[in-house]
């Protein structure tokens, strides 16, 4: 990633490759309840990302030895479809990347789900990336929060997520695929919206301490915009009733 920096111009006259300013989000659209069989679901279109998330539970914990008598177990499976990228058809099934992402996404929601209410059960978060365009983990977390709310699972807080990175020597919000692949650094974050705590924090590339601090501030502002869209999607769904059909 960082070793090919400079080969692709990512900032032209202060604008990004897709014409955005540094702190602009790509178009973000969220639909609630698109999988009627699931207890809760959400569909997120974010730039070129298309992601569905279904939440099931609290339901019986399988295998039984995973269960806790004290709280529900949060489980997460993030998966990228083999046709999700413009490049070659990738192998289906779990990869090392998807295993790691499933873990870090689970660790985000363990902080907010009020699991003590449902001992001996599990809550499943299934995320499928149908089309990928950079920033799938942050889009997945944004979708999963909405799906959990739609499933009626009690949470202490809403979670919004966005990546901040460095591309063309500039700090930018919400990296697109080119910025992700050819930029100098990528720092995906997720934040709880009431107490502004970092629930997801990963980083690669080279950054100074000051840049990291600045980027957390950018993520905080970005997450507020994302959260506003999450909230309005949920409101729209519950005001219209559950029969609305979703346009893909």
């Amino acid at each position, binding site marked *: *990633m*960082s*070793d*090919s920096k400079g080969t692709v111009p990512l900032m032209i006259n202060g604008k990004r490759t897709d014409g955005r300013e540094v702190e602009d989000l790509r178009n973000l659209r969220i639909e609630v309840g698109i999988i009627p069989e699931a207890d809760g679901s959400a569909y997120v279109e974010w730039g070129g990302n298309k992601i569905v998330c279904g939440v099931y539970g609290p339901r019986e914990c399988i295998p039984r*030895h*995973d269960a*806790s008598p*004290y*709280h529900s*177990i*949060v*489980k997460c499976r993030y998966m990228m479809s083999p046709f999700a990228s413009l*490049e*070659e058809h990738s192998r289906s099934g779990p990869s*090392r*990347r998807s*295993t*790691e992402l*499933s*873990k*870090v996404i*689970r*660790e985000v929601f*363990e*902080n907010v789900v009020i*699991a*003590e209410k449902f001992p001996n059960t599990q809550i499943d978060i299934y995320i499928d990336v149908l089309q990928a365009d950079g920033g799938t983990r942050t889009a997945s977390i944004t979708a999963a929060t909405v799906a959990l709310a739609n499933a009626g699972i009690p949470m202490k807080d809403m979670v919004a997520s966005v990546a901040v990175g460095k591309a063309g020597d500039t700090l930018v919000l919400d990296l697109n695929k080119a910025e992700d692949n050819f930029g100098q*650094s990528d*720092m995906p974050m997720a934040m*709880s919206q009431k*107490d*502004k*705590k*970092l*629930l*997801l*924090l*990963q*980083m*690669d*590339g*080279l*950054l*100074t*301490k000051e840049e*990291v*601090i600045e980027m*957390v*501030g950018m993520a*905080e502002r970005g997450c507020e915009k994302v959260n506003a869209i999450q909230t309005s999607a949920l409101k729209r769904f519950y005001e219209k009733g559950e029969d609305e059909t979703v346009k893909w």
Partner: protein
Amino acid sequence: MVMIMGDEVKDVIMAQIRRDVLNNTLSKGVRFDGRKFDEYRPIEVQRGPIKTAEGSAVAKIGQTMVLVAAKFDIVKPFPDRPTQGVMVSNAELLPTASPTFESGPPDEYSIEVARVVDRALRSAECVDLNSFFVETDKVLGLYLDIYVLNHAGNYTDTATLAATAALLDTKIPKVENGAIIRGEYAKPLNPTKLPLTTTMVKVGNNWLVDPSRDEERVLETTLTIGTTEEHVCAMQKGKGAITKDELVEAMEIAFKRGDDIRKILKG
């Protein structure tokens, strides 16, 4: 309230009384082994134990012991980087090393540590992959195998330390007619940067570095920060939630401790 989440149910059971005592002493600012909150256990690095690999090192932080071996092969380059070599990291949490590790395919913990170490090394650009080109469709592939041999807490930092030490020990093999001549070397790899990670857990509002196995069991909020001399080169938050101020403090600690350990590494 006991809070055990996800895979930790697999862990050996820690007596509640030990948990409570440890929590109480830590909240008073005292660690069981007498260390300060920002103090590592004794660190030891030994280079070159494996003669069959082009580079290797064993790192010990306290009782935690990790072996990293670096081995080269001729491989096909990635289609989008046809002139660049390849670096692959893999970690094994050997069932030999801890009652909590199980045999079988890599689980999410071993995948995570391999990917965090990989990210730190790659971001620091300490290996020049452009120098690995051999001929069309042939480049050198550098395999870093991370073997956790004893897990007494904080295998992440021990693994990064062993990986960086192994790179310092690595010699690039001689290549003739598109094949590696085993046992003959062209030149040392000479990593330009020495990336290291510092792992911390949170006690109240304070960070505690290099957690022991017991401290890891009791304290959930975990943050790993990779550093080079000047830059942050990787970050990975585990469980828990942290504030912006806590992140700023953690970065300061990571730079200080990283510099200390780099001195040991340089010998």
